[in-house]
């Protein structure tokens, strides 16, 4: 404890009689107020310096694209670039759809039914973000034991519905937000 001695009691007499000069509550208040202002000030200053690294306005503006499905023949996929990432547009054969639906109840890490991953009545069109949910590599089309995709980086295997069946990836390939704008055109994003 530091005792503060009132050097000039005549000037500060009334004050020191009622409240000792080292009134702790008054000093604490000043310390806390000054400290809070400093922390708030630093935080306000630091936030723009941190947030500048988040996506810029023009990056955010590139949010949706359209794609003409007639370019993709049955049994093949087209890879489109959307927001810097590959999007797989796969025209599935009836056998591939059947294989996916047959496994709807198979044990899976991230169980989901095939019909929940496509638009109603458009069973052959599977639209997926082509980014492995493990560490972001681009899985290869038509390889792996389920005939879906195989990720070359760490060996994740996806089926013909893009569901994770084997390997380290935790989730199914993501289905992006998309809509059919006509029978042969989709809008992704």
């Amino acid at each position, binding site marked *: 404890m530091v005792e503060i001695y009132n050097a000039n009691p005549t000037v500060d007499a009334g004050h020191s009689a009622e409240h000792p000069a080292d009134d702790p509550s008054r000093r604490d208040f000043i310390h806390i107020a000054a400290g809070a202002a400093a922390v708030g000030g630093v935080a306000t200053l630091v936030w723009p310096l941190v947030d500048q*690294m988040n*996506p810029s306005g023009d990056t955010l503006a590139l949010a949706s694209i359209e794609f003409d499905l007639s370019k993709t023949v049955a049994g093949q996929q087209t890879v489109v670039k959307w*927001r*810097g990432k590959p999007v797989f547009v796969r025209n599935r054969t009836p056998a591939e759809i059947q294989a996916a639906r047959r496994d709807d109840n198979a044990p899976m890490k991230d169980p989901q039914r095939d019909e929940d991953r496509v638009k109603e009545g458009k069973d052959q069109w599977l639209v997926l973000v082509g980014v492995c949910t493990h560490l*972001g*590599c681009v899985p290869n089309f038509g390889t792996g034991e389920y005939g879906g995709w195989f990720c*070359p980086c*760490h060996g994740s295997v996806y089926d013909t519905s893009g569901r994770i069946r084997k390997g380290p990836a935790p989730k199914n390939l993501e289905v992006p937000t998309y809509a059919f704008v006509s029978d042969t055109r989709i809008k992704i994003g």
Partner: protein
Amino acid sequence: MSGHSSYEPKTGIERWLDARLPIVRLAYDSVVAYPTPKNLNYWWTFGGILAVCLATQIITGVILAMHYVASADHAFNSVEHIMRDVNHGWMIRFIHANGASMFFLAVYVHIARGLYYGSYKAPREVLWILGCIIYLLMMATAFMGYVLPWGQMSFYGAVVITNLFSAFDGIIPGLGTAITTWLWGGFAVDAPTLNRFFSLHYLLPFMIAGVVGLHIWALHVPGNNNPTGVEVKSKEDTVPFHPYYTVKDGFAIVVFFILFAWFVFYAPDALGHADNYIPANPLQTPAHIVPEWYFLPFYAMLRAVPDKLMGVLVMFGSIALLFAVPWLDTSKVRSMRYRPTARWFFLIFVATVFFLGWCGGQLPDDVVIPVGRNELGQPTGFTVVWLSRILAVYYYAYFLVVLPLLGLMEKPLKVPDSISTPVLSGGGAALPAGAHASPEKKG
């Protein structure tokens, strides 16, 4: 930097400067008169080698930055421009690229030396932790530098490493995604990522240099450890840094740079990957991606765990463990020279790291020991991923089980009374007459 200074300014200008900024005194006390244990072997020269590696990287790096263009559209071509058109550009780039490998080679020897001789033990814990921080900064710098040429391996290296943070989605959903988006400056590794990596790749080496300054400061307070692990007891145990260790370090640096030069001039791409001469393509991952050799042991541990979040934690944990080593090792004896059992565990540990590195370069499902064949005629049996698991368990066990328990259970050999005794009398006995003759008079 510590203790009594023996610097005596000889000229007027030295006295004038010494009274205003004693910088010559600092240099004299640190690298000329600095008392150094007289028994340091060649494992101790890697500190000096590392200092030269850092200087080499900074000088060549600053030069490369004069010609490199940090832009997703131009980066790859500007590196080819350096290789083909810039005067001596090929040599400067190969020195810089191979210099990273040489830097890691030297730092691994340096770390292993510290682990073997117990250089992390009291009173050198802070010195050790500063070294761990330098190692972390080195890894970040090397990773971001590898991204800059913007080839296929650069790109997918950046994709995989930044995606490690997406594993935090497994703790708080959305947290990992927020971190990766922030790191990328977009929704994928792209032009903004390259620009910020260049900025940080230029910054971090200077931060390394700063921490190296602290590392040397923390070294000069307690002074060097030495192969016996016995603290310096008297002036008889030391020699001045110059000329004894300036010459010894200098010789080791020359030998090390012969190896360095061999890589630069005869096998400049041997440690790289051919796929990095293909420009980055965000739509096609190369069939087999591997990190640079110096990250392979950690990569093997990442792949050894089938769960994403756990794999990432095991990998980061393997490095975090190093920080705790001073408190995990319970042995009273510093140097493993006097710990015959610990020496074996250490040898197995070094072999484990080598084999983990080998595993990191293989495909996870490759078969190491074939047992049979499947219906397609491919060999089946003990795979790389299982080998990695066993090795990763030993890696962790070495730090968490062996170091704490062995220190309590083993019976170490007799430790000499001082650095001088084993040399001068074959162990422990009283010093023979004449042993005190100063070493510099013995030719």
